[in-house]
C-alpha cells in the first residue's frame, strides 16, 4: 500500500489533469466561434455561399434560375429591395445584378447585411465575386444607391447527385444597422422594460 504522501500526490495529479481538461474545454468553446464561421464558409453549412475572384469555368448550356430576396431589420430605417426579382443564367457565367437601398431617416445611417442561399445544398456551388455585403454601407439622410452583386453558379452542381435537381436558387439578404451606429440607448432600455416581448410574440423558440 502506498504511503500517505504518495497518495496525496497521486490525488493532486488526477485533480490537476481534470482542471487542465476543464480549461481546455473552455478554450475550445471560444475557439469554436471563429471555427464555426470557417466551417460555414468552407462547407456551405447554413447556406453560406462561396467567395471567388472570377469564374474560371466554361459557360455551360445548362440554365438555372436565381431569385433575389431582401429583408430589413426593424432597427434599420432603410428601404431595401432587389432591382430584379429573378434571372435565368447559364451555369459558369458571371452575372451582375443590384439591390436598391434608400435611407428613410433624417440622419446618416450605417448598415451591414447577412446573406445566405437556399436550398442549402446549393450553397457550396454559389460563388460571389463582388458583393455590397462584404463591407458596411453608409447612407446619408434620404440618399438612395444601387448596390451591385456579381455571382456565378459553379457547373459542378450538375455532378452532385444530391444537388443536381436544383432548378432555382434563392439569394437572400438581411440588412441590419451596424452595432457601432446604434444610438446610445442604455437609459432607454431600462425605461422600455415594460415592453418586454413574450415567446409567443417572437414566434416561439
Amino acid at each position, binding site marked *: *500500500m502506498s504511503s*500517505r504522501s504518495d*497518495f*496525496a500526490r*497521486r*490525488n493532486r495529479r*488526477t*485533480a490537476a489533469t*481534470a*482542471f487542465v*481538461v*476543464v*480549461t481546455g*474545454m*473552455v478554450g*475550445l*468553446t*471560444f475557439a*469554436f*466561434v471563429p471555427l*464555426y*464561421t470557417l466551417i460555414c464558409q468552407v462547407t*456551405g*453549412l*447554413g*447556406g453560406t455561399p462561396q467567395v471567388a475572384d472570377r469564374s474560371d469555368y466554361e459557360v455551360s448550356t445548362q440554365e438555372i434560375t436565381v431569385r433575389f430576396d431582401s429583408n430589413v*431589420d426593424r*432597427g434599420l430605417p432603410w428601404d431595401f429591395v432587389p432591382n430584379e426579382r429573378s434571372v435565368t443564367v447559364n451555369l459558369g457565367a458571371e452575372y451582375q445584378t443590384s439591390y436598391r437601398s434608400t435611407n428613410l431617416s433624417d440622419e446618416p445611417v450605417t448598415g*451591414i447585411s*447577412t446573406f445566405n442561399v*437556399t436550398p*442549402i*445544398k446549393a450553397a457550396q456551388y454559389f460563388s460571389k465575386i463582388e458583393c455590397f455585403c462584404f463591407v458596411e454601407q453608409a447612407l446619408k439622410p434620404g440618399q438612395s444607391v444601387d448596390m451591385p452583386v456579381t455571382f456565378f453558379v459553379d457547373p459542378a452542381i450538375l455532378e452532385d447527385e*444530391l444537388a443536381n435537381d436544383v432548378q432555382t436558387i434563392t439569394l437572400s439578404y*438581411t440588412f*441590419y*444597422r*451596424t*452595432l457601432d451606429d*446604434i444610438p446610445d440607448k442604455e437609459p432607454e*432600455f*431600462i425605461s*422600455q*422594460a415594460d415592453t*418586454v*416581448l*413574450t*415567446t*409567443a410574440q*417572437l414566434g*416561439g*423558440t
Partner: protein
Amino acid sequence: MSTTATHAHDDHHDHAPKGIWRWLNSTNHKDIGTMYLWFSVLSALVGGGLSFLIRLELGEPGIQVFNVVGEMMGSEAKQFYNVTVTAHALLMVFFVVMPALIGGFGNWMVPMMIGAPDMAFPRMNNISFWLMPPALILLVLSAFMGKGAGTGWTLYPPLSGLAGQPDMSVDFAILSLHLAGASSILGATNFITTILNMRAPGMTMHKAPLFVWATLITAVLLLLAMPVLAGALTMLLFDRNFGTAFFDPAGGGDPILWQHLFWFFGHPEVYIMILPAFGIVSHIVSTFSRKPVFGYLGMAYAMASIGIVGFIVWAHHMYTVGMGVNYRAYFVAVTMAIAVPTGIKIFSWIATMWGGSISFKTPMVWSIGFIFLFTVGGVTGVVLANAGMDIVMHDTYYVVAHFHYVLSLGAIFAIFAAFYYWFDKMTGKVYPEWAGQLHFWTTFVGVNVLFFPQHFLGLAGMPRRYIDYPDIFAEWNMVSTWGAYITMASTVFFLIVTLFVMIGGRKSVANPWGDGATTLEWTVDSPAPFHTFEDTPDFTGGNPAAHPAE
C-alpha cells in the same frame, strides 16, 4: 482522508461535530450527501410547485391562473407563464436531479462502495455543496427581477438577448448557472479522483460496483460538457452587457452558434441526469432478484459508450434550423445508434430478473417502474430521432411527453428507488413497506395520467411553451391536470410519512435486504457511522461483502 487507522481522532468512532458548524464546515461525505439530498427536496418543492401552477393554468382553455400570479409578481400573465416554465426546468435539471443523484447518493454511497474513508478532497466537497444555495437564490431572484427570465431553459438568443428580455433577470439566471456549473465541475473532479485512486486494494475497475462506474462516467461527462455551457453563457452575458456580438447578426454573430454550443452541453447533460439512475437500478434489481447483475461488463461499457456517443449527436435538437440533408442523415443515424447500448441495459436488467428469486419490495417496484417508463420514453425518443418526424413534432407536447417520461418518470423514479433502497442505511430507520408501496402506485398512476395524454396533444399539433390553446385540446389537457392532482396528493403523502418515520421509525439493521445486497455499504451499521472504512477492506481475495453475516 487517512487510509490508516493511526490518526488520533479516528479512535472516537462516531464523534460528529455539533451544531450549525457541523454542516457549514462539513468535510464528511455523508453529511455533505445529506445536505445535497435536503437541498434537492427543497428545490423539488419549489420546482414541483411551479409545475403544478402550469398544470392548473392548462387545465382548461383561457388564462385563469397566471393573470393573478403574474400580477402578484409585477409581471404580466404570458411573460410570467414563460418565467415559470423556465424556472421549473432549470430547477429540476440543476437543483433537483443532479444534486440528488450525484451530490446526494453519489457522495453518500460511492466512498463506502469502494471502501474509502471519504472523498479525495473533502474540503473541495464542502465548497461544491455550498456553491449551490447561492446559485438557487440567484435563480429564484431572477424570477423577481423585472419581468423575470422567460426564455426557456435553452436560453436561445435573440429571445434571451437584449432584444427579447431587456431587464436584468436573464443575467441573474446566467450567473446562477455559472455557480451551479462551477459546483458540478468541482464535484466531478472530486469523484474522478476518488474513484480512480481510492478503491480498496484488489477492487479493480472491472470489480467496481456499477453505481461507481455510473458516477465516474457522469463525472467525466460533466468535466467535458459543463465548461462548454460556462463558455457559451459567458458569451451571452457579454452580448447582453458589454456590446459583443457572438450571437447578434448585426455584429457578425450567429444565433445558431448558441444552439450548437448549448446542445453540445445539453445533450450530454441528459445523460448526466440518467446514468447515475442506471447504476442505482442495476444494484436494486440485482439485490431483489438475489442474483449478480446480468452482463456486468456489458452494463459498464454500455454506459461508457452512451457517454461517448452522447457527445456527437447534439444537432438532433435543432433539425429545424435549416440543416443539409447529409447532416440530418448523420445525426439521425448516430442518435439511433444510442438505442443499442441503452437496449443492452434494458435487456440485461430483465435478464437479471429472469430466473431470480424476486421480492417486490418498495425499491424493486420503483426500479421496475423506472425500467418500464424509461423504455416508453426511449421509444418516443427513437421516433423523434428521425429528422423527418421531428420537423413535424418539433416543439410540440409530444417532445414534452418524451422528455418527461425519461426524466420526470425515469430519473425521479430512480431517485425514489434509491431513497427507499438506502433509507435504512442513511437514517437507521425502517420505512414502512405499505407506505412505500402506496406511494409507488399512486405516483405511477398519477404521472402516467399526467404525461401519457401529452403524446396525443403533441401528435394533434399542440405547441409547447404557450399559456393557452384552442378548445379542441381541452379534454386531454383536463385529464393531464387530473394526473397532476393525483401526483401532488401522492407527494404530500410521501413527505408526511417520511417525516413521521424519520422521527419515530423502527430501528433497522446493517443489511435489511439479505444475501442479494453485496456492496460494501451493507457491511457497516445502519445508520452508517460518521466515519467508515478507516481500516481499508481487502478485495484481493474476492468481495468481503459477498457473504454477509445476516
